[in-house]
């Protein structure tokens, strides 16, 4: 409420600034008289002559020139009689009284967020926000490390949390620092590789692969690294290599290893005959369908995606896909509402919010 009161005061001040001169009657003008300027120029010529900055005959010519202008100026000053145009003044007053507040509010409302209060940091740290305990903690650890960057233990704690939050770039940096200050280990190398993969959106880049290879070199049984090396092979198109790597893992694995199902699933994906259709395959299948079926299929997929995202809103790519899908389907309203949901879902996470906004820019549905 205070805010609107302040707005009202400010508007009143602005309107007042326009009305003030309108209300005043004509005042005797202290108009800058040109004559004064010319008189000064004449005086200056005398000074210049004294300083021999102008020859005597030229000075005479200059005096004549200025004198002529002086006369002309005297003529000029008489000519514009001041009028007062009551109609115009009233219109301006009305524009200021009505137009200015309306225009200001009309421009402000779509841009501003009048319902949001201030969030200065000092207040927020005093009353820890219950909704973001993890973020708070991370920020504290980051602040600590900013000051004591050689605290290896700190990097060790922070890195996996960052990776889980999806801040892969920061996680990569944190793992690098962790390796620098805690020493090399297979597990850390593998984690670093995983973060790099995450940063590349799930693609095992050459750099990530190098980290996994280093991890395996340090410890041949490093499970995570071996799994990802298999994944790298798969992404390079070498499925047989991938399959043999994963099979080797399963062969030597203890029967109760928690990661068994994951590797088995991966294996099934690349060689099982009933492998779940890849997105490409789905699209290919859709080509053969008739219009209604295809629409039904697409709608089904989109709905599935939407409900998945309702449960877990962290998947920025998913949100973008959803929004894009709605737009392709011509359903702009739904796209907009999906967008709002997406913003809410990732609002706590700066990095994702940024990714989301970046993605949206490309979709042309900004704002």
């Amino acid at each position, binding site marked *: 409420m205070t805010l609107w009161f302040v707005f009202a005061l400010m508007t009143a001040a602005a309107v007042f600034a326009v009305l003030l001169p309108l209300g005043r009657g004509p005042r005797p003008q202290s108009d800058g008289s040109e004559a004064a300027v010319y008189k000064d120029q004449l005086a*200056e010529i005398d000074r210049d002559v004294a300083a021999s900055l102008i020859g005597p005959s030229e000075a005479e*010519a200059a005096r004549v020139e200025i004198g002529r202008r002086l006369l002309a100026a005297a003529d000029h000053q008489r000519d514009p009689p001041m009028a007062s*145009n009551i109609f115009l003044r009233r219109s301006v007053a009305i524009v200021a009284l009505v137009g200015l507040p309306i225009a200001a509010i009309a421009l402000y409302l779509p841009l501003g967020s009048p319902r*949001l209060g201030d969030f200065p940091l000092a207040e927020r740290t005093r009353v820890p926000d219950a909704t973001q305990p993890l973020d708070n903690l991370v920020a504290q650890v980051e602040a600590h490390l*900013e000051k004591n960057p050689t605290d290896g233990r700190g990097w060790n704690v922070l890195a996996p949390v960052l990776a889980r939050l999806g801040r892969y770039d920061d996680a990569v*940096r944190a793992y690098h620092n962790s390796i620098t200050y805690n020493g090399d280990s297979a597990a850390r190398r593998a984690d670093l590789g995983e973060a790099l993969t995450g940063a590349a959106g799930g693609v095992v880049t050459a750099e990530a692969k190098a980290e996994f290879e280093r991890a395996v070199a340090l410890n041949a049984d490093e499970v995570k690294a071996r799994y990802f090396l298999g994944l790298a092979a798969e992404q390079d198109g070498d499925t047989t290599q991938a399959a043999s790597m994963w099979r080797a893992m399963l062969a030597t694995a203890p029967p109760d290893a928690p990661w068994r199902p994951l590797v088995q699933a991966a294996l099934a994906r690349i060689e099982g005959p009933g492998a779940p259709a890849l997105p490409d395959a789905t699209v290919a299948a859709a080509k053969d369908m008739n219009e209604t079926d295809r629409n039904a299929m697409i709608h089904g997929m989109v709905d599935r995606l939407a409900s998945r995202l309702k449960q877990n809103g962290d998947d920025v790519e998913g949100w973008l896909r959803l929004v894009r899908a709605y737009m392709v389907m011509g359903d702009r309203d739904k796209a907009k509402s999906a967008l709002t949901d997406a913003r809410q879902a990732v609002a706590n996470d700066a990095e994702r919010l940024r990714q989301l906004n970046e993605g949206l820019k490309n979709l042309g549905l900004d704002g």
Partner: protein
Amino acid sequence: MIAEAGHYALVLALGLALIQSTVPMLGARWHDAALMNVARSTALAQLLFALASFAALVTLHVTSDFSVVNVFENSHSLKPLIYKITGVWGNHEGSMLLWVSILALFGGLVAAFGNNLPLSLRAHVLAVQAWIASAFYLFILITSNPFLRIANPPIEGRDLNPVLQDIGLAVHPPMLYLGYVGFSISFSFAVAALIEGRIDAAWARWVRPWTLVAWIFLTLGIAMGSYWAYYELGWGGWWFWDPVENASLMPWLAGTALLHSAVVMEKRNALKVWTILLAILTFSLSLLGTFLVRSGVLTSVHAFATDPTRGVFILLILCTFIGGSLTLYAWRASALKQGGLFAPISREGALVLNNLFLTTACATVFIGTLYPLALEVLTGDKISVGAPFFNLTFAPLFVPLMIAVPFGPLLAWKRGDLLGAAQRLMAAGIAALIAFAVLWAWTRGGSALAPLAIGLAVFVIAGALCDLAERTGLFRAPVATAVRRARGLPRSTWGTAFAHAGVGVALIGIVCETTWNSEYIGSMKAGDVAKIAGYEVELDSLAQRQGPNFREMVAQFTVSLDGRRLSEMTPSKRNYPARGSSTTEAALLTRGVSQLYISLGDTADGTIAVRIYHKPLVLLIWFGPVLMAFGGMLSLSDRRLRVGAPKPARAPRGLQPAE
């Protein structure tokens, strides 16, 4: 609430600017004093709201309110307070807000101290000023709004870039902006004169001080930016002919020309049409600079293409104002009456010559900066126009200008005596010849170019002194008389002398630095000695050190001259692990106006790559512009500048930069 109030203040400022841009024009059309006076009160109110908006953004940055996108993206709670504040204009949105705030400030100053201007002229000037302001308020609100919010604010901001935390970088943009935007006043005056179809005598009296203010800030801003690049980048270079630098140099050259032609106009009512054109061009170049820097078209055409809204918007503003004003010029300029007569050889003639060379030099910079862009758009060929191009075009154009500089102040108005002036400059010529001969002998017949250039610089400095000696009658009259006359000299005369001498001083620095700069690059380990320009620089030790938020490799050097220990220098290389970035902190040792400069490269098993420069007289490069700016300030304080416009009512003296 602060954020929203700031946002609303910006909207209100736009509303007021729109009223200010129309109502006074109507008032002038119908000769209604009250309507014309609206310009004044709205300009002041607009200033109030723009400042409130800017203050709100500063407060948000200071209190680290990360619910504001701008703060979140460009600040961090761990930044030192001073960098939280300077971070406000370290980013696009904030810098644009600073830009319009300065624009509003200049408009407010005209409104506050323009009592002595003819009413209709003031109304027109403020209306034109409001057109520019409206365009930029709209630009900010629509494409670069610094007050956008995040509903669930993150707990920490994103930017803690160590490279940007530097005081030089923090101060020079506002300086440059004061310069750029200051030229908007001369632009508004020019357009107002074209609209009115006549030029008041008060016109030049007003335009010159405003141009002078803008010019002083721009000079200082450019010098400061150059010094920042010199000590911070670790390369020892101080001018790169980079498009961003050129963008600030072009308005400076045009502004310098404007300053000189405004003198002719003020004193002799001549060169009116030309002065108006220059005023328009100068501000157009400022706008162009804003466009080049802000649209991202320079760093990457790609950045411009992915987010074209901003670039296209500024381009539209640019085209509207430049195109509009030039059209108006073409249409109305012929209506302006011709001014006083003068012979080609006269003070006026000398100033015309100055204008000719300055604008031509400006044009070559313009071509060198924009040609690659144009070529790429037209043919797809990519070229880079670097220092060699500018050295081959800009430098030769400056030589005749420099030769002419000392003659100007010695020539009489209307019809001058070149021979007489030359006779009076005899002493300066002799000094220049001696300087040349001594240097040439000293460098044992090396290239004559550098000694010649220094001789030229000495000629300019000695010429400025000759002018003063001539006016005070030094050496001809008793000392007491000379001192009395010196006191009686108008300050603008002193200003001219200082500014001209500043050009010479800067030239000496530039020539010395580029010609006799010596450089040592090599890898050193503890105990190694590098010899450079007579100095012995020994690497004592290399040590790792822990800073507040960085680790640094500090190299300690002992500098000695002829076996005598002078000082220690400790350059370092900082690594910010939390950011994964590193910076090089160069060490500078100032000896007189020369400097030793050490910066570090990579380390490899106990050795470190080291770059040592000896830069003779390098500081003169920046003393020159400071001297020029000082000359400008002296000239600004000249009481005679205030005479033309009669006593302002009530306004306190000290607050009248304009008069």
